[in-house]
């Protein structure tokens, strides 16, 4: 039976049952009221009083319960929306009321063909119903507002309030002969509870200025509608036509009381809040301004940007009437952009007045902060085009640097109170921090770059050092190379060629760093590329390019990429064992030191030859030439770079060619390795304690005393 019942019943929401019950109660109420008046055909007269009360109570209860279970009317923080909706409903209901009253008046005056008494009763019942509906709406709207940010405790208190209100309603129903003092007591208790709840108006603080005024007006409206209904009902009570018993006065009165009191309280609080609110708005704006500055200033890419951000934020936040920001360039600042002084509403004529304030006093390292809140009295800016009231001079400085000065002016005196100053100090501190960060970032970047360059250059240098020296039975080679702290451009290389030939290259790229390292690599590349045997050569000596051609081709290759004011010195030797001699070319490089075993003398080959990269066209050909020399067993060749002969001692004297020559004279008979050691040892002795400021390279080639037969 129950099963089929649920099947047959259409799907009705639980809350809708309340509406249905309410409608039923209302009908009951209507009929009861009618029955108590003039007899109406078809209607039993004088329905019992309790039925009337039950109908009223039941209706009120159902409407309230129905409204209670509706979803919260407050969406987010849209308080004005809530009030507006409530106002609209109130307005609609009030208009309906007035229409009904109008009809009633007309019926009573017999203008309308309606039975007067019945009309009055019907109108009254409808009006009552409308009022109850309105009250329910208001009460539960107030619930949303009361419990906004109220917490669990407040929700419990509201529950208690509701229950007590419900009890008041029930009491009237069940015990309608309550003692007046008890009734009064309960009434006062509930009223006080309502007053207490009306204190919870936290939502008012979340309104902005225009919303506050709207709230006041809407609350007034709602109050008005409530009073209108109360006025009508009070009058209706006294209507002789309406012989209805006192309605559930206590319940309705209490609800109306709370509804009105909350509205009044809210209204007053909003009204009194307004002037205080302005101050809070201002403070809030300042704090937001600070937050905003903190965020954007961290994204500042350049010093001018950061200064501009500070300037704008400071002016906006404290509503300055004029301002100047004079930045100060930091030593070693990489950005070449000029830092212009920022001005806002500041007449150029007034600049001389403030200039002394913006620069440090003679003898002092920095600008001092100055706050003058009564310029009129101190006459500090007497003579300015606009009479200012207060002034703040704020230096932007860290413990180590001065970044500039900010000057703010306000027309009112006492504009720079302690709170404003604390905000401004935070602004300037943020700015200095950002500027310092920016500087550090730039420095670190350039440091990193320099380090990277040096590292790469050192790496290249390291890679290009010939790891294995050629060995053969007719010569000895010994090498020594020391790079200066700043990577320079010395290079050397050997190639042991088929046919018992030895090619030797030495050189020095002017300049330092990565570019020099690049060119040393280039020279070595040219060396290896050009020392390829020509398969078509008919004569042995044509098999490999001669030194002159080597230099010309090297010069040609360099023209395209050597920097404008760079050049390269080089010397190239092609030693031929079978021929017993060598050919060489000197392109601006140090003269070759040679020990002639037959003559037993040590001397320099003084040959002509222009450095590479000086004449960058074919005319260079004429400036370098190949020399030939036959060697004898026991001969020693010493090849070096200018870092050797230009090494300085403590008094600024150079080591020089002569001293090198004398050293070789003393040790030529030793092995290449020993000779090399002697020579470099002497150089190191000579320049002991002095820093190395140019690369040093020293190659010793000794033709063995006993040359094996071919």
């Amino acid at each position, binding site marked *: 039976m129950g099963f089929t019942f649920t099947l047959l019943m259409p799907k009705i929401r639980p809350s809708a049952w309340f509406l249905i019950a309410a409608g039923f109660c209302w009908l009951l109420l209507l009929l009861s009221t009618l029955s108590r008046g003039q007899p109406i055909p078809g209607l039993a007269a004088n329905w019992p009083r309790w039925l009337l009360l039950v109908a009223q109570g039941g209706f009120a209860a159902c409407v309230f319960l129905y409204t209670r279970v509706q979803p919260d009317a407050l969406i987010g923080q849209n308080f004005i929306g809530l009030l507006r909706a409530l106002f609209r409903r109130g307005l609609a209901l009030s208009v309906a009321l007035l229409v009904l009253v109008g009809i009633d008046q007309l019926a009573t005056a017999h203008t309308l063909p309606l039975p007067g008494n019945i009309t009055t009763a019907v109108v009254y019942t409808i009006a009552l119903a409308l009022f109850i509906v309105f009250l329910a709406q208001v009460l539960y709207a107030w619930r949303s507002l009361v419990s906004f940010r109220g917490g669990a405790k407040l929700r419990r208190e509201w529950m208690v309030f509701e229950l007590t209100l419900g009890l008041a309603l029930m009491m009237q129903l069940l015990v309608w002969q309550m003692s007046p003092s008890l009734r009064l007591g309960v009434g006062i208790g509930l009223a006080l509870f309502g007053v207490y709840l009306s204190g919870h108006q936290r939502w008012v603080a979340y309104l902005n200025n225009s919303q506050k005024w709207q709230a006041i007006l809407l609350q007034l409206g709602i109050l008005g509608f409530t009073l209108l209904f109360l006025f009508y009902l009070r009058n209706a009570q006294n209507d002789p036509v309406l012989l209805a018993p006192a309605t559930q006065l206590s319940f309705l009165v209490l609800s109306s009381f709370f509804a009105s009191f909350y509205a009044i309280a809210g209204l007053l609080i909003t009204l009194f809040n307004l002037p205080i609110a302005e101050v809070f708005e201002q403070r809030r704006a300042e704090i937001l301004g600070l937050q905003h500055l903190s965020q954007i200033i961290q994204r500042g890419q350049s010093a001018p940007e950061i200064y501009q951000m500070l300037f704008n934020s400071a002016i906006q936040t404290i509503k300055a009437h004029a301002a100047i920001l004079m930045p100060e360039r930091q030593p070693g600042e990489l950005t070449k952009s000029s830092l212009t002084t920022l001005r806002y509403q500041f007449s150029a004529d007034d600049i001389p007045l403030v200039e002394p304030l913006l620069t440090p006093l003679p003898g002092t390292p920095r600008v001092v902060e100055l706050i003058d809140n009564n310029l009129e009295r101190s006459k500090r800016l007497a003579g300015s085009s606009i009479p200012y009231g207060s002034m703040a001079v704020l230096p932007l400085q860290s413990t180590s640097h001065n970044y500039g000065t900010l000057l703010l002016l306000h027309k009112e005196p006492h504009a720079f109170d302690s709170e404003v100053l604390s905000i401004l100090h935070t602004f300037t501190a943020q700015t200095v921090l950002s500027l310092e960060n920016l500087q550090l970032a730039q420095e670190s970047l350039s440091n990193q770059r320099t380090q990277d360059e040096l590292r790469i250059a050192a790496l290249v240098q390291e890679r290009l050092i010939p790891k294995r020296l050629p060995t053969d039975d007719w010569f000895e080679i010994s090498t020594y190379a020391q790079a200066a702290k700043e990577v320079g451009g010395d290079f050397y290389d050997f190639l042991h060629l088929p046919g018992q030939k030895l090619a030797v290259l030495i050189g020095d790229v*002017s300049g330092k760093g990565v570019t020099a390292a690049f060119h040393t690599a280039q020279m070595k590349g040219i060396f290896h590329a050009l020392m390829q045997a020509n398969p078509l050569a008919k004569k042995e000596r044509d098999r490999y390019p001669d030194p002159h051609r080597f230099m010309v081709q090297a010069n040609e290759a360099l023209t395209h990429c050597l920097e*404008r*004011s760079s*050049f390269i010195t080089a010397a190239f030797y092609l030693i031929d064992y079978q021929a017993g001699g060598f050919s060489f070319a000197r392109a601006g490089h140090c*003269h070759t030191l040679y020990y002639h075993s037959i003559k037993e003398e040590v001397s320099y080959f003084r040959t*002509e030859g222009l450095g590479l990269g*000086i004449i960058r066209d074919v005319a260079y050909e004429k400036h370098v030439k190949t020399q030939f020399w036959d060697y004898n067993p026991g001969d020693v060749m010493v090849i070096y770079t200018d870092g050797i002969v230009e090494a300085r001692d403590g008094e600024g004297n*150079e080591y020089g060619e002569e001293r090198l020559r004398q050293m070789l004279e003393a040790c030529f008979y030793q092995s290449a390795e020993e000779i090399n050691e002697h020579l470099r040892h002497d150089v190191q002795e000579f320049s002991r304690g002095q820093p190395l400021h140019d690369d040093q390279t020293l190659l010793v080639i000794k033709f063995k005393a006993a040359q094996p037969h071919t």
Partner: protein
Amino acid sequence: MKVTTHTSTDTLTLVLDGELDASSAVVLDAELNKPEILNYRKVLVDCQRLSYISSAGLGVFISHLQRLQDSDVKLVFFNMQEKVFNVFEILGLDSLMHIVPTEQEAQAA
């Protein structure tokens, strides 16, 4: 290093005092880059007080050589100290640039 200039109708004389290292080479380069230089017939360089020349300094002179030659401006060095002249000589610049012992010869060049 200090660079002082004397001018006469058709001659510009640069007097170099001190060591021509990498940083002073930049100053010299700026001086030689001035377009007015090309209006002179001769540019004389007084090297009496030039005690040292680095590869940067040499590079500056080398780089302006062609430009001056193309505008028919003669570049003449005089009163060069021996060790400075040595540097020019090893590099082979003595065959490329006019280097004379005295000022008179420089004026006459």
